[in-house]
């Protein structure tokens, strides 16, 4: 596992973001300074695991290492707390997607480094 991924695994595994203790704004990915009020009092917060599709696209040419997952569907999801998250949507086809569809976060394999390397896990979305 790359060091940067290992450091961020709670973000990827559990959708852990942050909440501002002063103005209650929530952020994902986590930030160090509140983008709304400038406070540095930020605490870890589980993001809601459900939301709706804001927009989506289909990739037929992906980055190296993701070829087996083509065609790949990417979406921006607005979670129930209003936070917008970028992620893959799986177990469906582009024909079955619409803006506004309800989705939920699931735990999936993101990528693996061949048959002998490490496996990277994280959140993706499926239609709810």
């Amino acid at each position: 596992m790359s060091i940067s991924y290992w450091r961020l695994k709670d973000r990827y595994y559990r959708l852990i973001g942050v909440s501002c203790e002063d103005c209650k704004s929530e952020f994902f990915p986590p930030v160090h300074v509140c983008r709304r009020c400038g406070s540095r009092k930020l605490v870890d917060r589980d993001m809601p695991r459900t939301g709706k599709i804001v927009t989506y696209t289909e990739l037929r040419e992906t980055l190296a290492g993701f070829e087996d997952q083509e065609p790949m569907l990417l979406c921006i999801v607005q979670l129930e707390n209003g936070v917008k998250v970028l992620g893959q949507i799986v177990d469906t086809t582009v024909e079955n997607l619409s803006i506004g569809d309800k989705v939920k976060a699931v735990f999936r394999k993101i990528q693996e480094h061949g048959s002998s390397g490490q496996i990277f896990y994280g959140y993706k979305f499926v239609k709810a």
Partner: protein
Amino acid sequence: MKTHYDVGIAGYGVYLPLYRLPTTEIARVWKGGGAGPNKEKAVASIDEDSSTMAVEAARRAMDMAEVSRLGAIFVGTESKPYAVKPTSTIVAQALGQHFVLASDMEFACKAATEAIQVIRGLVGSGMIQNGLAIGVDTAQGRPGDDLEFTTGSGAAAYVLSRSSPETLATVEAGVSYVTDTGDFWRRQNEKYPRHLSRFTGEPAYFHHVETSVKQLFEAYGLKASDFTYAVFHQPNPRFPVEVAHRLGFKAEQIKTGLLNPMIGNTYSASSPMGLAAVLDEAKPGDRVMIASFGSGAGSDAFALRVTDAIEKKRKKAVKVADLISKNTKIDYATYAKFRGKFTK
């Protein structure tokens, strides 16, 4: 085997992948037509493995159990994504549970009931408050082998806690029986398991399941008619029906937990998933028997009593019947891509 404190199920959760391969597809490719003994089998997608399915089932079980801390996480599987590196630590991380005893158990299709037996001991001795036992597999058969018809994917998870008004079933008794029997195996570095064909039946499945259930009956003064439901390991649709008949169970006692015809053999998850299907509909006071089978070989048998908490708890259940009926059919080529059967 009895415990010092009574142990019960605080929550259960099942995960089935979306995709189904009709066995007519396997027969079309390899046998020139026909079908397998089961209608379809559940197939994990290209981005799913035993870790991802274990996490999904575990999250559902934890949602129902409503416990904040676990003392142990055991994952029973024979399809570990890593040969060396536990699946249980991936589950622990995904659940945010770190002060746990975490380990993977391996005993072919009975690894999960083994995990249940061990967690039962840890909870029943007072060493831990709550423990999580998961059965999960992405079972693989060699392309063209008879095993390929039935090898399916799925997961079932159980949170065990000390019996209380919050536990939905009490584990009244449990026994384990093993012998050294070479019915099915996979050597180190081999991709697919091998089996001794007909050896799978009498000396393996039937001998071990019958012996463990008879031992459960004898040791605890029970008989088949004491149970509302019985669940057996399901390597195919026929074996559980036959063994139930031999042990004196009637067809209506086993039909709820018999899932193989729709999803195949989910290995470690097979009998635990059948138990979940039973808990989806059981009433307070019902007695349930579950008997697993693992090649190599052995069987764990348990007697459970459903409690009043079932009605409240299962409002949170994602029902096994719904998971089975929500599916997308795939062809053999898609299955081969998903399960890594092409060499690139």
